[in-house]
């Protein structure tokens, strides 16, 4: 059994009966190895489709999760259970509950570093005050607005108005959360949240690949939310200095917000300033100051001055990229996809108002970005297999487009691996309008391939 991965959260979905006799058979050695290689911030086991489990059964999964957490520093837990299952887990692990319990996967996603949805108002209650606080802090840190009930009565009263909340959180507990540096995107700035004492470990917990790709796709402002940083040592300073130097090559700015330096040598601050790091007391000093934001590059995802062009190696692999796109379209639609034209150019989109787009980056032996642009109706059709029922909900369509481009990325990765070209793929990104895509990619030169299936047109664009 393999975990299904979305937005940096991997979930196992076992079905049926789970006991000590059969649980090891859910996870082959290959499954375990594949799980260890997953680039996720959170790994969960869903009990949604499990009708019976006992300690020996669930513990096989818990042991795997614990092993992955030690290796990859990620958050782990169990989700999608009812009260009876929750009570059973609490009984099994009452003295040793070091993983999280999320009543459902939507709640889990709220605590995930890379979950795209932010600013959600949620109702929160736990009879354990320390859990209540821990969850509230994590939710704030992840950019949400928790409404905290101090008593069950208050919670029940508020929960009646369930429409007022994105999610109602109860029967949920936080275990040790992941130690990865949490990442979120606000407007066109990327915010990394760090806390505690920063040392050499930041080199392991900071997702350098994500950062590099963000630079590649045009992000220019990176903010370290450091309100909860107590101090740092020379190893952390070295790491951050290097980060600033590499950012300078892209004309990007790295800033540190909220750190007091009361317990840190001021020389460290000076060294970081020399590397180009900027320091601010409050997040609003940057995010609410439009002029400064523009100056720092956070007002738009600017096109890169020194545009990176497609290399010969990438162009040589163009057939694989197109093949991955065509076969995915054919798989999803059962229709024959046809290449109409291919040109080296900057991106050109006709009837821009009617278009949606998604993109995925790849990095490794070669790096670049695949962009797909669809008319809205065609996006719906091409994602029908993923969406299921007919829907006009743009969020659902965008969600499916992200999954769609993720499949193309996965297929490309496999095709390239057959030629000994190793790449990893980034999280997919979606654009509700083509205009938003152009903010990122209008100046980028690449290969534009116009394609069609069943007389519907869509555009594939490969760039760096």
């Amino acid at each position, binding site marked *: *059994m*393999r975990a*299904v*991965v*979305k937005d940096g959260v991997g*979930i196992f*979905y*076992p*079905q*049926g*009966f*789970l006991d000590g*006799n*059969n649980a*090891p*058979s*859910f996870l*082959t050695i290959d499954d375990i190895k594949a799980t260890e290689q997953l680039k996720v911030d959170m790994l969960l086991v869903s009990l*949604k*489709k*499990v*009708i*019976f489990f006992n300690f020996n059964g669930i513990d096989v999964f818990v042991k795997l999760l614990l092993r992955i957490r030690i290796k990859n520093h990620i958050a782990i837990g169990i989700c999608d259970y009812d009260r009876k299952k929750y009570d059973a887990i609490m009984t099994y692990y009452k003295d040793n509950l070091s993983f999280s319990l999320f009543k459902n996967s939507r709640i889990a996603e709220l605590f995930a570093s890379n979950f795209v949805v932010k600013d959600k108002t949620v109702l929160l209650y736990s009879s354990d005050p320390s859990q209540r606080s821990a969850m509230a802090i994590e939710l704030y840190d992840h950019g949400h607005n928790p409404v905290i009930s101090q008593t069950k009565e208050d919670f029940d009263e508020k929960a009646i108005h369930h429409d007022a909340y994105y999610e109602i959180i109860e029967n949920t507990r936080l275990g040790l959360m992941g130690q990865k540096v949490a990442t979120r995107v606000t407007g066109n700035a990327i915010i990394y949240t760090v806390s505690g004492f920063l040392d050499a470990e930041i080199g392991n917990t900071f997702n350098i690949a994500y950062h590099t790709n963000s630079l590649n796709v045009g992000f220019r402002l990176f903010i370290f939310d450091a309100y909860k940083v107590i101090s740092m040592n020379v190893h952390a300073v070295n790491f951050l200095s290097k980060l600033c130097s590499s950012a300078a090559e892209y004309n990007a700015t790295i800033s540190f917000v909220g750190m007091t330096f009361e317990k840190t040598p001021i020389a460290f601050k000076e060294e970081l300033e020399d590397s180009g790091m900027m320091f601010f007391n409050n997040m609003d000093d940057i995010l609410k100051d439009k002029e400064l934001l523009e100056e720092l590059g956070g007002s738009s995802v600017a096109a890169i001055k020194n545009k990176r062009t497609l290399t010969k190696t990438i162009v040589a692999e163009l057939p694989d990229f197109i093949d991955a796109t065509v*076969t*995915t379209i*054919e*798989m*999803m639609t*059962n229709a024959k996809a046809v290449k109409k034209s291919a040109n080296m150019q900057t991106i050109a989109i006709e009837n821009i108002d009617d278009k949606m787009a998604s993109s995925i980056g790849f990095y490794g032996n070669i790096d670049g970005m695949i962009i797909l642009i669809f008319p809205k109706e065609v996006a719906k059709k091409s994602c*029908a*297999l*993923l969406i*299921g029922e007919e829907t006009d909900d743009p969020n659902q369509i965008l969600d499916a487009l992200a*999954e769609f481009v*993720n*499949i193309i990325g*996965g*297929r490309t990765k*496999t095709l390239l691996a057959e030629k000994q070209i190793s790449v990893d793929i980034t999280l997919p990104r979606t654009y509700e309008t083509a205009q938003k895509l152009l903010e990122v990619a209008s100046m980028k030169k690449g290969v534009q391939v116009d394609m069609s299936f069943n007389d519907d047109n869509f555009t594939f664009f490969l760039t760096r």
Partner: protein
Amino acid sequence: MITAEDIKEYIKKIPPTPAILNETILHVNAGDLTKAAKVAQEDLALASYLRNLVNKPIYGFKNEVHDISQIFGILGVNIAKQSLYNYMLSLLSPKKWVLFAMNQHLFYDLQADLSKHWYDILEHLNIDDKDIGSAITLLPSSIIICEALFKENIENVKLLRSTKNLDYNTILKRLTKLDLFDISKYIAKTWQMPESIGTIILASSGTRPASDERLNNLGKWMHLLLFYELSKPQFLEAGLNDFIEFNVEYVMDIYEDFMKVMEVKE
């Protein structure tokens, strides 16, 4: 990936019931097991299948039963009919499995386990009906159909399932508007099985409840029984556990009873 045309092609290839089997079933339906045994032993493959089936540990016979008349006598009318349908279905199973890590031996084990437990369930429900007893035999057809339709698309499905929690049945339904159980129902029709069998099979998918409450209830028992079986290590390792989606809510009202019948301690 898979089109409605592919399904039509598959359906065309479903063979009619062999003449000997038809005749044997007629005698079983008439309650004449002696005549049924006499006809059955003319078909060496059928005779061998029945010997193999009856001597599986789940039937619990101490000594090996070899004689076909004796086998029919031991099985009785209901299980004899069930076994004949099981044989019919085994004719559809592939010689070499590609999508699922199955083999003939494992498939026969699955058939035997399902049939025996179905018998226990019907006994618990006080149902003595040859047709309903035989309904279970068609359930594994969904696995055979899944293997046949998806074996050429293993990599595609793997990719799809790495990003979305989709089972084969849902994928097929979304691609072709038909699911595995529609095709199972068609097989039932081709083999002139009673209509109630097709209805129970559809309900056992967990997604198509029957309007007839009695048949729907049997569909629930069958759905839960399927996942009880597919949770066994050998079928998990064969990759069968998530070929369709388990609908927990659908079976919740019979769960306690089911656990008693299966003697599972909670």
